[in-house]
């Protein structure tokens, strides 16, 4: 049933978009890939699951708790692993960019090991009261969880886009992304803006973590690695630093994966996505929405 598959693809794609936008926000202001992003996503998933299943917190509370935890993780990441490696003005000169990248890889390894210690290597179930609730509209089945995912990611992405486009601090973030020094000359406290970007990106990863955990009904410590890699692939595909690129790229990847599983061989699920990405990059090396360096 094509309509159902399209809904599945859109749901998966909107989660990918959430992850990819997080990468893009941090890349925009710091010019580095945050390699710990996937692990923060995984911690978000576990936090949501544990608060809901072990502590019996209502789902919205578990959700907010997980967002708060991952936002805090983003803050600590910026404070301990990123800021000390930057020049005071926020400039990434010399090899500061490279050392910051390595530093995020270090954080990723620490988080992965910490998660094994805390949560164990086994996948754990995450059952929600509405996991099997579905609506039937004509011949099409929609699960409630899919609606929740689409609504949550839709609201977040639109909110973020509006904030970037229209608000004073959103403009400051875009200015910082283009040139930290120029933004500082306009009176922008670039340190604050960079912290905002890292915290927002991490909180979005946490949100995506809980949504993924709910839709797959289980969580595992390995989920961060594969999601992290896909998010990375999406921003390369969509164009580094472009929010539109992350959104469109995420949805294309989600759709492609779903359709391949539905109508082709599910063994090629991950492969076909990367084939599309390589194809696009051959034709448009800067990605779909790539901007020329200025």
């Amino acid at each position: 049933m094509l309509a159902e598959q399209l809904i599945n693809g859109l749901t998966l794609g909107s989660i990918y978009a959430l992850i990819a936008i997080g990468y893009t926000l941090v890349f925009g202001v710091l010019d580095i890939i945050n390699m710990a992003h996937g692990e923060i996503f995984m911690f978000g998933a576990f936090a949501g699951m544990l608060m809901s299943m072990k502590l019996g917190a209502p789902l919205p509370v578990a959700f907010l708790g997980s967002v708060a935890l991952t936002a805090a993780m983003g803050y600590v990441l910026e404070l301990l692993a990123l800021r000390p490696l930057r020049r005071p003005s926020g400039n990434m000169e010399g090899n500061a960019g490279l050392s910051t990248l390595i530093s995020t890889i270090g954080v990723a390894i620490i988080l992965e090991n910490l998660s094994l210690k805390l949560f164990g290597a086994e996948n754990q179930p995450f059952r929600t009261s509405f996991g099997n609730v579905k609506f039937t509209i004509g011949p099409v089945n929609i699960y409630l969880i899919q609606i929740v995912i689409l609504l949550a990611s839709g609201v977040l992405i639109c909110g973020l886009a509006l904030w970037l486009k229209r608000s004073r601090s959103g403009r400051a973030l875009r200015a910082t992304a283009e040139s930290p020094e120029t933004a500082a000359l306009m009176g922008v406290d670039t340190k604050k803006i960079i912290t905002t970007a890292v915290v927002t990106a991490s909180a979005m990863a946490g949100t995506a973590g809980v949504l993924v955990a709910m839709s797959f009904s289980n969580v595992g410590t390995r989920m961060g690695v594969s999601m992290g890699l896909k998010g990375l692939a999406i921003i390369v595909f969509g164009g580094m630093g472009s929010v539109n690129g992350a959104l469109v790229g995420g949805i294309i990847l989600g759709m492609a994966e779903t359709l391949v599983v539905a109508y082709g061989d599910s063994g090629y699920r991950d492969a076909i996505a990367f084939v599309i990405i390589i194809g696009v990059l051959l034709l448009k090396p800067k990605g779909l929405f790539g901007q020329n360096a200025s």
Partner: protein
Amino acid sequence: MTALLKVQHLETYYGHIHALKGIDIEVRPGQLVTIIGANGSGKTTTMKTLIGVIKPKRGKIVYDSLDITGLSPHLIVARGMVLVPEGRAILTRMTVLENLQMGAFVRKDESVGADLEKMLNRFPILRQRWDQKAGTLSGGQQQMLAIARGLMARPKLLLLDEPSMGLAPMVVSEVIDIIREIRNSGVSVLLVEQNVRQALAISDYTYVLETGKVILQGNSDVLINDPRVKDSYLGGDRPYNG
């Protein structure tokens, strides 16, 4: 009259390069002060040190009766000292309007909208292209935008670093006119310029920089006839034939 900006024995290093070797500069309220000097004499370094992008090693910067030495740029800008940097530093991916809005980033007063309107009236080309990406503007238009963006902060002291660089002669004259206008509106200006003749003609006081030191200073109308300035910066006494 107390100085709006008083720079004492300012020393700045670029890595191991001793770029400023003890500079003293003063700008009084309402004054237009020029810094001239050859490439590498430390003009841009002076501007960047004043605005806080580079931290000085030694010396003191007092602005508006406040010691601002070592403060971050955003704190200095918030106090009304604004730099329009060399090379314009337009935010090319943002629109003309957004660039102007960014200029007013530090302001929280009600008249930002009115000032925006004023700028768009003063620079009609910016009104014409307000919704376009600033990167699509020509060099001269970008310079107008950079100056207008600087004015959007309502500075008390405007630092202009080579505003005429790379512009066609006609546009240079326009920029010079604008600078004079800015001074006449009551804003103090510290100007770094390569067009020495025009800069001296509109300014009150001039400093001549050489390898990180002030080697000459005085009223601009006196310096313009100084043989040392004539020889080094105005092409000597040879008649100018275009």
